[in-house]
């Protein structure tokens, strides 16, 4: 199968060393024909490129029906609240991308963390903006999650057969809050330091396992040299990995089970039945 359609080729066979590009006129055998572009043929060729690329991929992946099923699902009713889940996904992606770029300049050591965060804000081109996106984006994401959750709840979308998706969503909101908690320490200013002390000690107030949980989070009996790198690793490696896996499962179930109709949409009676009742 040809990747590029061979269009615009002149009847004269081109020399073997001349590449066969659609729309490019070939030098004739006698060498006196000017080379150049046949615009119409070039356009035609370009128009067919996406089709042939799609065909090339389809031949190897065979996923077009699954993709169509995922991207062009039928959604009952026309309700903007159905976009909330996607809005959360965009917020998550924004956090992931800005987080990756912040990580390039951030130093998770107790002596350097504040200075590197200050460097991002004050010195770097667009640093304040990207850090601001990450900082405010976390709040936006949590607000959107709870709107999404409320929509699911009030539309009854957590009911059979979508219970597993609700459960995955609850784990995801918990992980998002854990992201907020672990990320709060990283600027390492007075506010984030003491907020983290309080948060870790809150974990410590749980009976029996509380004391061990506090030590586990701090990596020791007191706030110490590894606490901040521990929070950083949890914030940028452990939880995001879990979240990406669970978001995948969440989306898979959404496409597999379909979307719930809004509660005010009733199943339409078939015409004949309605007539019989009259």
């Amino acid at each position: 199968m040809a990747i590029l359609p061979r269009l615009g080729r002149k009847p004269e066979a081109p020399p073997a060393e001349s590449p066969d590009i659609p729309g490019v006129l070939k030098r004739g055998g006698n060498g006196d024909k000017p080379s150049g572009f046949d615009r119409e043929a070039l356009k035609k060729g370009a128009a067919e490129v996406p089709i042939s690329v799609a065909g090339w991929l389809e031949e190897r992946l065979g996923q077009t029906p699954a993709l169509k099923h995922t991207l062009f699902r039928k959604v009952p009713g026309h309700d903007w609240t159905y976009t909330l889940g996607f809005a959360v996904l965009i917020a998550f992606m924004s956090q992931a991308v800005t987080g990756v770029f912040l990580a390039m300049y951030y130093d998770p050591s107790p002596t350097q963390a504040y200075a590197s965060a200050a460097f991002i804000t004050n010195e770097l081109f667009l640093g304040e903006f990207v850090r601001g996106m990450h900082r405010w984006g976390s709040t936006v994401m949590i607000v959107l999650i709870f709107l999404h959750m409320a929509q699911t709840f009030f539309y009854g979308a957590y009911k059979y057969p979508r219970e597993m998706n609700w459960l995955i969503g609850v784990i995801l909101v918990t992980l998002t809050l854990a992201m907020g908690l672990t990320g709060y320490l990283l600027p390492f200013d007075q506010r984030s330091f003491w907020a983290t002390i309080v948060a870790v000690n809150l974990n410590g107030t749980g009976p029996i396992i509380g004391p061990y949980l506090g030590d586990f989070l701090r990596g020791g009996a007191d706030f110490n040299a590894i606490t901040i790198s521990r929070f950083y690793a949890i914030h940028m490696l452990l939880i995001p990995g879990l979240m990406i896996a669970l978001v995948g499962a969440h989306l898979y179930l959404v496409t597999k089970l379909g979307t719930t109709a809004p509660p005010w949409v009733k199943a339409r009676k078939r015409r004949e039945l309605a007539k019989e009742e009259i």
Partner: protein
Amino acid sequence: MAPDPKKRSQKRSPYTADRGTPGAYEGETITRRSLFTGGALAAGGVATTAFALPALGFALGPLFEDRSRAIFQDVGSTADFNPDAYVPQVITLPDSQGTGEAGKTTVYVREFNPEIDTDKLGYPYVAISTRCMHLGCPVRYVQASKRFICPCHGGVYAADGSVSGGPPVRPLDRFETEVEGDRVLVGDRFSLDSQFQKFSPRDPGEPLDGLWQYLYPPRPTV
């Protein structure tokens, strides 16, 4: 209906040939298929355990580290302190070495005063930790009211560190003290219940009176 005794004995036979497995060898007790399935699962289990256990141990290791540092820090000469008023001094917590400013903490130090102090701890100096016993914010001593006051959630302590009001669950922690020549040294942290009984260091928010001390166990290595 009672099961056919003959059939049952055949089912229970340890030999695959008796159980009617196709292609069974004589004397074979496990099918090759189930042997390989079990073997593959076991190998996968061993491989997973091989990386998961060390990683888990690494993550949980700090819980089992020895915390009794017995490091004593010099906070000043005996002439700097008196039995009536606290003198704030800055020390670096032994566990927080290498954290720069974040590892430093204020200790309120004064000489033991038999007229105020009722505890039988036997330390020559009283060194009170500023870590609030509610959730760990830093308390401040206010000389005018002779109280330790926490800025976060309104915890208030008397001059000896016992709780006067607010959410704290036990008196302020203290540090061991000793005198060497004319120098005052401050050592490991310890916790107190409301009767000023000494306990190994616990986190804030963990009451130690009565049965509570069993619900908040000490660190395994202290």
